[in-house]
């Protein structure tokens, strides 16, 4: 689709704008954190525990308070965010790589390859994603690479299915048939004709996968199977803060809101992209 149309639609789509803005802000705040944080996220300082949020001295004070170990909540929030977002990026990149390749093969060549890939998808989907991840982490141990493996294992399927369905539809369309008749070779057809059309769908499903990954990592960290203490992650901060929340709620409120905003913005982005990239829409 024409780049101009896409840009124009982007400017007018409130979901895309809100989603993208929040995401950019989150990315900036979290990834630039080493430049401005004043406290150490993992070192305990028991003398200072359970401090209420204090905005008086800007970033030098505990603007979101401290937790049960005296650590600055805001620092842990942004550092944890950086970790969660990084993991999400890696996981989604892997999910897309695997899913798209398998989806392209399954959709374009059909036949046995398609059957095998689809069966594979069915099997992976038959076990709920989180439970699958829990099982894998339980058996293999809570390391970072295992975490990524467990999350990719369950998630590539959605990308694969979307890709495959798209390729199936495209393959039957006339411009592809015409290419085949004109003698174009398979790699050319796949790369030049089909892939660009699938790309738009990949953006949409990618946003969804991002939101899912953040949530899944949070759930795993919540259950103490993901990021391990004392390293911060939004999930394990909520889990740790639960015990004290009756009297010290900011320990859970801060990471909870962060999670909500992150996932909300990715969902908005995904919805917005879906509308923007819809070829059937009449501007």
């Amino acid at each position, binding site marked *: 689709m024409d780049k101009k149309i896409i840009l124009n639609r982007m400017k007018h789509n409130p979901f895309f704008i809100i989603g993208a803005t929040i995401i950019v802000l989150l990315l900036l705040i979290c990834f630039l954190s080493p430049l401005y944080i004043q406290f150490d996220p993992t070192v305990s300082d028991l003398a200072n525990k359970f401090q209420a949020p204090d905005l008086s001295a800007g970033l030098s004070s505990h603007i979101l308070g401290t937790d049960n170990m005296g650590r600055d909540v805001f620092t842990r929030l942004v550092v944890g965010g950086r970790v969660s977002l990084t993991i999400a990026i890696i996981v989604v990149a892997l999910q897309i790589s695997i899913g798209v390749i398998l989806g392209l093969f399954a959709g374009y060549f059909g036949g046995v390859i398609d059957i095998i890939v689809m069966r594979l998808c069915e099997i992976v989907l038959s076990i709920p994603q989180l439970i699958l991840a829990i099982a894998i982490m339980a058996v293999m141990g809570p390391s970072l690479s295992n975490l990524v493996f467990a999350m990719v294992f369950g998630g590539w399927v959605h990308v694969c299915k979307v890709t495959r369905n798209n390729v199936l539809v495209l393959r039957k369309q006339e411009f592809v048939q015409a290419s085949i008749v004109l003698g174009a070779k398979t790699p050319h057809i796949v790369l030049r004709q089909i892939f660009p059309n699938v790309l738009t769908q990949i953006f949409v499903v990618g946003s969804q996968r991002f939101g899912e990954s953040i*949530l899944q990592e949070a759930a795993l960290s919540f259950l*103490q199977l993901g990021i391990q203490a004392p390293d911060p992650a939004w999930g394990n901060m909520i889990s740790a803060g639960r015990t004290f929340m009756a009297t010290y709620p900011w320990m859970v409120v801060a990471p909870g809101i962060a999670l909500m905003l992150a*996932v909300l913005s990715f969902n908005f982005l995904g919805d917005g992209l879906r509308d923007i990239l819809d070829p059937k829409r009449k501007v």
Partner: protein
Amino acid sequence: MLEYILKRIGQTIFVLFIVSIFAFFLIRLAPGNPALLMVPDGSSDEVIRAMEEKLGLHDPLYVQYFRYISDILHGDLGQSTQYRVPVAKIVADRLPNTALLAVASVVVGLLISIPLGIVAGSHRGTGVDFFAMFVALLGQSFSPVWLSVFLMLVFANVLGLLPAMGMGSWKNLILPVATLAYPMAAQITRVARSGIIDTLSEDYITATYAKGISRFEVNWKYALKNALIPIVTLVGITIGSFLSGTVIVETVFGWSGIGQLMQQSVNVRDYAMVQSLILISASLIAIINMIVDIINSFIDPRMTLS
């Protein structure tokens, strides 16, 4: 129709077979002696040897697998290392609690979302529509990870209206159900709404109006059936994340179901339990999906075409 049902059953059995293989291999994935995983820490060598015998670790893999399957079919899911009683017994105790939670959540979720979606879709652009869309959009991003904790914070800790944890009275059911039902209801509202919108734009709806059928009847009797199809499909798909959600919800609210059991078992490395719970939850989902598909085939007769 019968053919379709049989076909679906066959597919489900195949999926169960694969899941059982996965569960079977689970404990053999970790490095070291699998028998060690299945006995309590600090067990004597005899106990370990007995477990090795039971698992048939010296036998070829396929024999081990058959032994595993035959054990299951006889109701033997292994011995829990944390509770020292058969897994089957504990699961049987806890499963009804999760079932209660799940059923209550699905029922509440559907009762709210389907009418809301239908009204929103058939009255596009009105206040109800915007409200429904807003609420649904938010809800889709809600995760039990923080929603459960927030709800508890607000309603139990701050407002003191509802009990925080436990399973004693019907009041204990409210917060967990709300946590599970809301995200699901949000998705269903969206699907119901778009289902109705799509249906109402079809020729056959105009034809139905041309027969003198009232708007009310068209929305709630004729178009509804068509809109149900994507809804039922979605329920099937979300059941999976539902079960995942129960792990978190049960842990937070102290609900003694298999979700909480899963979390505990993983933490104490009770692998016999973990293995069985994977098998059970995946089987449940496969069966529920099959039932959902069969229900759908009654609603939409075109599905039974090959």
